[in-house]
C-alpha cells in the first residue's frame, strides 16, 4: 500500500487522512462540489472532484469512485463510516479491482449487514440475541400482517428496525398495537429512502437497558482481540449523543464475558480489521447481541483514549498484512465523547443550518476535538448535522465529567444553533453523574422536551452585550469592493447573510 483513497467526508475523513499522512502514505480525498472548500479536502495529498450533485451521484457512486482510484493510482480504499462503508458489493468491487479494502471481507459485511442473517449466525455461534422476529416479507401489505402477528408473540413495547439499516433511520418505537400501522409505513418509507430496502424486523424493546458495545480488532495472522467496551446509552432520536469508556457499571468479569462474546461473533464471520459488536446490557447483567458494525465507528475515540490504541492506524497495519502492534488490553482513566450537532435541542432536535461565524473549540490538557468544520464554514442541509466530536480524558470519571462541563462552556459556536447547551446540562443530570445511564435517559429527564435553564441576570447580560454590539458599530456592513474579501475571514465584525434566508 502506498496511496490510500478515503471514500468519505467530514470529520472522519479528516481523522483518516491525518493517520495516512502520519503513517507516510499518500492520500486521496474525493469531494462533491458542495465540499470543495471543506477541511478534509485540504488534508489529502491529492483531492479529486466528484461529478454529480446528489449523494447517490457522488459519495455513493461506486463506479465513479473506482474510476478515480484507478486513475490516481490508489492501492487501498478506506470507507470511514456511513456512505459505502457497509456495502458488501462495493467492498467486493474494490477487491476485484485489485485494490485493498480497509475493512472486513464482503462476506462478513453482508452477513452482519442483514440483521436477520446476523441474528441467525449469532444464535448459531452461541452469542445471545434479543427476543424478536425476522420479517422476510417485502410487500407492504404482507409485511404489515406478518409484523402484527409477530408483535403478539414479542409483546409491546417493541422496536421496528430496518433490516439493512443503521443510525436510527427507519427505526420506530411502538408502545401499543394502535400505533403499529403508522409506525410500519413510516419505518418502511425511511428504510427504502435510506437503504433501498424496506424490510423491517420486530424486536422486544428492553427498556432500562444500557447500550454497551465492544470494540474488536482482528489481523490476518489469526490474532483477534477486544479493546473493552464503550457505553453509548444516551441517545436522542435513536442517535448517540454521549458516549463513554469504560461503562460506569462494568465489572472486569462482565467485560471479559462480553469481550469473549464479541470475539465469538467476529470469528463466526471470519472477521478481519476493526469492528464493533453492539449489545444491550439489561440491569440483570444479561446481555444481548444487537448488531455488529463492520467498520470504524463514530465513537471510536473514547476507546483510543482509555486503551492507548490508535484504531485507525491499526486498520492500516492490518490491511498491510502486518500483525497489529497493540499489546494486551489495559484500560486507563475515563473518556467521554459528546457529539456536537447543528440542531435545536429545544425544538425536538430539529436539524439547523447556518454559517459558523465563530467556531472556537475548547483547549487544554485531556481535550480532543475531532472536527470536520472550522470557523467560516457553512452548515448546509446536504449532509448529516454532526459537526464535530468533543472528547475528554481524565484519570477518573468524575474528573472527566468536570472537564467535559468546562469544555462545553468554553466552546463558542455562533451563527448556527447547536446542542452545546443541551450537552452541558446533560452533564448535570443526576443519572449521568452516578452512571445510571440507559437508553431512556433523555426521555425520562425531559419528558416534555428540553429547554435551557437560563437565569434572568444572564439574559440581561446577553441583552446588554447585544446592545453594546449594536451600539459599537460592530454591525456595520463590510463595504469592500473585492468579492474575494467579502466572503473573507470571518470576524466578529463581519455581517453575514444566511444562504438560506
Amino acid at each position, binding site marked *: 500500500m502506498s496511496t490510500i483513497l478515503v471514500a468519505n467526508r467530514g470529520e472522519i475523513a479528516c481523522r483518516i487522512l491525518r493517520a495516512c499522512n502520519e503513517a507516510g502514505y499518500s492520500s486521496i480525498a474525493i469531494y462533491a462540489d458542495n465540499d470543495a472548500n471543506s477541511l478534509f479536502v485540504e488534508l489529502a495529498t491529492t483531492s479529486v472532484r466528484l461529478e454529480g450533485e446528489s449523494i447517490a451521484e457522488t459519495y455513493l457512486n461506486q463506479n465513479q469512485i473506482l474510476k478515480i482510484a484507478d486513475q490516481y493510482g490508489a492501492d487501498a480504499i478506506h470507507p470511514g463510516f456511513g456512505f459505502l462503508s457497509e456495502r458488501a458489493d462495493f467492498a467486493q468491487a474494490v477487491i476485484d479491482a485489485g485494490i485493498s479494502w480497509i475493512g472486513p471481507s464482503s462476506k462478513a459485511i453482508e452477513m452482519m449487514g442483514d440483521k436477520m442473517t446476523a441474528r441467525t449466525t449469532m444464535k448459531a455461534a452461541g452469542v445471545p440475541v434479543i427476543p424478536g422476529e425476522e420479517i422476510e416479507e417485502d410487500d407492504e401489505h404482507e409485511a404489515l400482517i406478518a409484523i402484527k402477528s409477530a408483535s403478539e408473540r414479542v409483546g409491546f413495547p417493541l422496536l421496528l428496525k430496518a433490516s439493512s439499516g443503521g443510525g436510527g*433511520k427507519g427505526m420506530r418505537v411502538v408502545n401499543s398495537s394502535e400505533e403499529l400501522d403508522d409506525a410500519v409505513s*413510516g419505518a418502511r*418509507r*425511511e428504510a427504502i*429512502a*435510506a437503504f433501498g430496502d424496506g424490510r423491517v424486523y420486530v424486536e422486544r424493546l428492553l427498556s432500562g437497558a444500557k447500550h454497551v458495545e465492544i470494540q474488536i480488532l482482528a489481523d490476518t495472522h489469526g490474532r483477534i482481540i477486544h479493546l473493552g467496551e464503550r457505553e453509548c446509552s444516551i441517545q436522542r*432520536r435513536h442517535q448517540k449523543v454521549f458516549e463513554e469508556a469504560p461503562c460506569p457499571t462494568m465489572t472486569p468479569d462482565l467485560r471479559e464475558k462480553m469481550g469473549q462474546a464479541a470475539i465469538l461473533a467476529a470469528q463466526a464471520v471470519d472477521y478481519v480489521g476493526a469492528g464493533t459488536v453492539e449489545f444491550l446490557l439489561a440491569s440483570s447483567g444479561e446481555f444481548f447481541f444487537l448488531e455488529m458494525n463492520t467498520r470504524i465507528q463514530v465513537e471510536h475515540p473514547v476507546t483510543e483514549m482509555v486503551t492507548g490504541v490508535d484504531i485507525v492506524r491499526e486498520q492500516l497495519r492490518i490491511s498491510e498484512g502486518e500483525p497489529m502492534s497493540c499489546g494486551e488490553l489495559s484500560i486507563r482513566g475515563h473518556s467521554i465523547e459528546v457529539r456536537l450537532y447543528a440542531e435545536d435541542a429545544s425544538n425536538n432536535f*430539529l*436539524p*439547523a*443550518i*447556518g*454559517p459558523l*461565524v*465563530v467556531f*472556537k473549540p475548547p483547549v487544554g490538557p485531556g481535550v480532543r476535538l475531532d472536527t470536520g468544520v472550522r470557523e467560516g464554514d457553512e452548515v448546509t*442541509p446536504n*449532509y*448529516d*448535522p454532526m459537526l464535530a466530536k468533543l472528547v475528554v480524558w481524565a484519570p477518573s470519571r468524575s474528573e472527566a465529567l468536570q472537564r467535559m462541563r468546562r469544555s*462545553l*462552556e*468554553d466552546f*463558542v*459556536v*455562533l*451563527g448556527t*444553533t*447547536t446542542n452545546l*447547551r443541551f450537552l*452541558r446540562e446533560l452533564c448535570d443530570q443526576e443519572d449521568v453523574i452516578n452512571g445510571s445511564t440507559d437508553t431512556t435517559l433523555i426521555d425520562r429527564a425531559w419528558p416534555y422536551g428540553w429547554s*435551557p435553564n*437560563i437565569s434572568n*441576570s*444572564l*439574559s*440581561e*447580560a*446577553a*441583552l*446588554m*452585550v*447585544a*446592545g*453594546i*454590539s*449594536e*451600539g*459599537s458599530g*460592530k*454591525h456595520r456592513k463590510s463595504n469592500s469592493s473585492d468579492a474575494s474579501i467579502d466572503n473573507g475571514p470571518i*470576524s*466578529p465584525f*463581519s*455581517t*453575514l*447573510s*444566511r444562504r*438560506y*434566508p
Partner: protein
Amino acid sequence: MRYEFRIDGEVVEVTLSKVDDIWSLSGNNASILPDGRIRLVSTDGSVFFAHSAKVGDTWWIHIGGHTFCIDHIEPGAAEEDEGSGLTAPMPGKVLQVLVEVGQRVEAGQPLMILEAMKMEHRIVASQEGSVSEIYFSEGDQVQQGVPLLELSIS
C-alpha cells in the same frame, strides 16, 4: 443609547449608558476588548467574556456557557405578521401531503411530512381550523421559511 430587541419571542427595550469606554446597564459594566469580545462585570463582581456576531438582524451571543439569539428590531420597522401560515423549518423535500384544501384539522394534527437531512419532519397544525391553501405537492423541493400551507382559524 436605546435599542429594541426580541429575545425568546419577547420584545425588550435596552437602554445603555456610556462613559468613556465603559458601558453600563443597571449596575453591570462592560467594555470592548481589542479582539472584539466584550468584557462584562456584573453587579455581583463576576466577570464574563462575551462573543458576539451578527447574522442578518440577529445577534448571536455567547456568554457564561450559554448561546443567545437576539433579534435587533430596527427603529420604525413594522412587526412581522406571523399569520397562520405554516412554514418550512428548513430546506427539504415534501414527502407526503396528509390533508386536502377545505379539510378541518385539529391542533397537533400532522399536515405534511418533509424530508431534510435524511430525517422525516412532520408539519403539524398549530391550532384548530380548516386548510385554506396548500402550496406544494409530493416530491417538491422547498426552501427554508417558505409557507407550506395556510390554515383559516375558525
